[in-house]
């Protein structure tokens, strides 16, 4: 049952990401992106990352996706629901990306990762992440807070009417 669910989520992520990459309607692409984000949250649960799964849903689906939809609504004339988008150099891009995929897979799959056959048993991660955040990763945490403040002020300044 869990195996079946895993491969369903796997297929959902690949299919919706393909719709993001190849779809012709921008609105369809954004809603397909929601499928990708929710699927990745499901993959996090299979990877024992309970905190990350919830963070993924809250930040990506609740924040970034809404921001992207606002971006589309504010930069198109919404006279029809059909917001088309075009691509350039599809053939060349496809060949290059396909080659890159072949290179990555041929490098990653034959490699014998140490310990890759014994997964870690599930234990909740919230307390561990909180502990590490205020010990080993304290500098990174402080830098992140300054960066978020800078991004907040920068975005608000850039988006004003009179620049």
């Amino acid at each position, binding site marked *: 049952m*869990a*195996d079946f669910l*895993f491969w369903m989520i*796997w297929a959902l*992520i*690949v299919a919706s*990401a*393909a719709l*993001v*990459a190849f779809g012709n309607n*921008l609105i369809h*692409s954004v809603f397909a992106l929601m499928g*990708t*984000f929710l699927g*990745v949250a499901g*993959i996090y649960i299979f990877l024992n*990352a309970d905190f*990350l799964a919830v*963070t*993924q849903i809250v*930040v*990506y689906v609740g924040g*970034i996706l809404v921001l*992207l939809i*606002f*971006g*589309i609504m*504010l*930069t198109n004339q919404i006279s029809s629901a059909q917001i088309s*988008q*075009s*691509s*350039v150099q599809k053939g060349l*891009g496809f060949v290059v*990306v*396909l080659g*890159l*995929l072949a290179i*990555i*897979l041929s490098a*990653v*799959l034959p490699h014998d*990762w*140490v*310990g*890759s056959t014994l*997964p*870690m048993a599930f234990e909740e991660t919230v307390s*561990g*992440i909180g502990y*590490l955040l205020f010990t080993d*990763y304290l500098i*990174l945490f402080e830098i992140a807070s300054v*960066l978020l403040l800078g*991004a907040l002020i*920068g*975005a608000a300044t*850039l*988006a004003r009417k009179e*620049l």
Partner: protein
Amino acid sequence: MDHLSSYLVLSAILFCLGLYTVVTRRNAVAILMGVELILNAANINFVAFSKFVTHDLDGHLISVFIIMLAAAEAAVALAIILNLYNDRGHINVDEANALKQ
């Protein structure tokens, strides 16, 4: 499902689809969506290696910071895109080449 390679294949496919989106799209918002796909692929790799290889929480921490960076980047990028639209009336990145002249 209990093997590392299924996650690595998934994240490789997700990365390549994101890269294809970034390379071929003309709409700036669509390019931003491609960047989010790439960041998600990186996150899957970090957490998968954390579960199967290193058996600790460092990969989770890095993923938290990547999600935080993605949020900040999306906010600033959309503010820039709004300015581009006010200036040009479109957001096609291949026509935003004023610095070339």
